[in-house]
């Protein structure tokens, strides 16, 4: 089941001023445990996904961005300023933290409203209503947040992060605990926010969703930045990983032999009628597969690239280390 392709990546806002998020050589260690070491990247408007195994330093990086903790080396700038000491810029950041704790004795409305008021939002009540409808909590505004399920708490956190219409949105696993319908709605929401010129940074473990959210990724492993950019171009950069393609056809043997003979592919395995080929010349393969099949009068029922998806890119980046 391949995800329907994500929208084309936002054109990088070509403003010369400092990018919305600017991290240069940031490191963070707790005692002698290095959580983040020498990470540098710049982000502008649009949606970017931050990926990495557990304990790779994602949450620490997020906390540094919001100024919740200071980097031991390097600098972290949000909208050109340091969120830890610059009071006004904290009004432009919307954070949905990873931990599950909320003000349990407040109702959903009160919880989001307090976020609106402490952000100095003009009319907090309507902003709160709007935020709660965005996250599909309009029907339970008067219920105590403490009695909410994991998914509802997650949406309450999102509403609180959105209520002040921030320019920077930092969401730590925002979709965990949500059901498929809500997840789709949230993904659309992130798209619109990204296209409205906000800088949205999302961490997630569910790669199928990340691929739908956007194709811009930052991959962190053992505290270091492993890769950044569009994950499809990352895949093409990995020449040392040949592409694996599965072909369902009625002439597996003939097609395999022809492709081998024409040196388009390096390896082939045939399993009950379906052909699995490995090739590092993906361009040549793409151009010639149809014509070769036509010559042999062999029909191509399905041609499926097996390791082009985000999960394979992620696996190659993490496991290769």
């Amino acid at each position, binding site marked *: 089941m391949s995800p329907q392709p994500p929208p084309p990546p936002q054109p990088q806002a070509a403003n010369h001023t400092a990018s919305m998020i600017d991290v240069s050589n940031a490191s963070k260690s707790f005692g002698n445990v290095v959580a983040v070491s020498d990470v540098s990247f710049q982000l502008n408007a649009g949606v970017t996904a931050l990926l990495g195994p557990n304990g790779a330093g994602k949450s620490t990086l997020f906390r540094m961005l919001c100024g919740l903790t200071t980097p031991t080396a390097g600098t972290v700038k949000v909208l050109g300023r340091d969120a830890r000491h610059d009071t006004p810029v904290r009004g432009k950041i919307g954070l949905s933290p990873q931990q599950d704790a909320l*003000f349990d004795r407040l109702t959903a409305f009160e919880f989001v409203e307090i976020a609106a008021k*402490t952000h100095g939002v003009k009319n907090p009540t309507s902003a709160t209503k709007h935020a709660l409808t965005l996250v599909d909590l309009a029907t339970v505004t008067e219920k105590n947040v403490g009695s909410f399920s994991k998914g509802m708490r997650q949406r309450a956190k999102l509403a609180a992060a959105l209520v002040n219409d921030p320019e920077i949105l930092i969401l730590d696993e925002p979709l965990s605990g949500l059901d498929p319908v809500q997840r789709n709605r949230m993904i659309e929401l992130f798209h619109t926010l990204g296209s409205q010129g906000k800088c949205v940074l999302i961490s997630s473990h569910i790669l199928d969703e990340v691929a739908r959210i956007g194709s811009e990724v930052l991959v962190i492993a053992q505290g270091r930045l492993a890769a950044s950019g569009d994950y499809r171009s990352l895949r093409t950069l990995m020449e040392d990983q040949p592409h694996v393609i599965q072909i369902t056809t009625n002439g597996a043997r003939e097609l395999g032999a022809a492709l081998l003979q024409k040196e388009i592919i390096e390896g082939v395995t045939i399993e009950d009628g379906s052909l699995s080929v490995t090739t590092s010349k993906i361009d040549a393969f793409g151009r010639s597969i149809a014509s070769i099949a036509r010559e042999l009068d062999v029909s191509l029922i399905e041609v499926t690239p097996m390791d082009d998806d985000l999960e394979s890119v992620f696996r190659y980046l993490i496991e290769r280390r």
Partner: protein
Amino acid sequence: MATVSPIRAITLTHNVLLKQLITKGRLIGITLFGLLPILLGWVIGRQSDDPLEAGVGFISYMGLSILIPVVALIFASASLGDTREDGTLVYLWLRPISRWSVTAGAWAASSTITLPLTVIPMTIAAILLDAGNTLILATILTAVLAGFAYCGIFLLLGLLVKNPVIWGLAYIFIWEAIVTSFAKPAAAIAVSGYSRAIITGRTGVEFERLFSPSQGTSIFMLIVIIAVSMGITTVRLSRIEVP
């Protein structure tokens, strides 16, 4: 981008933290705890021949040195301490509001809940002692001042250590109760020393004590203690590792 005015920030922090502090368990427990001084006040009132002297002694030992500090400890150490422990501090910290208004809001919330739960039972006890109005007024004044001061100290304690209740109890029952009775400089920073000085000053009942400042200095020192502990809390808040 609007930054929120300090007064508004203080009231908002106060409202949120107050709601979080009021739990059924704490309320029932502490109101029951408050009945004890009332019962003892009534007993002493009936029994003792010089109620004023016995009353001042009882109010300063039972009320000012046990009831108020313990209740203040439970609420003030939890107001910011709990938000750091469970991770909700970020919802007050990552806001365009100044740090000191968060401290002031937390201090106000702790006082709003601590004072009624301590001053009221102590005033009733003072009345039951029927040793005249001076004692009742003195009790109210000192209880309120002591309440504010203890809330300040334990608010700071909540952000300094991992389990503030244990350290707070050590402060109340070891530092204030024992150490101050033989080390003069220790008494200089113990709230109970000043609150005792104020109540004895106002009621004219004298206790032979190591350290007896005048009423004026005592009130001034309590205010200094409040200001200093809120100042350190604010610095601590801006330097803290927010979960």
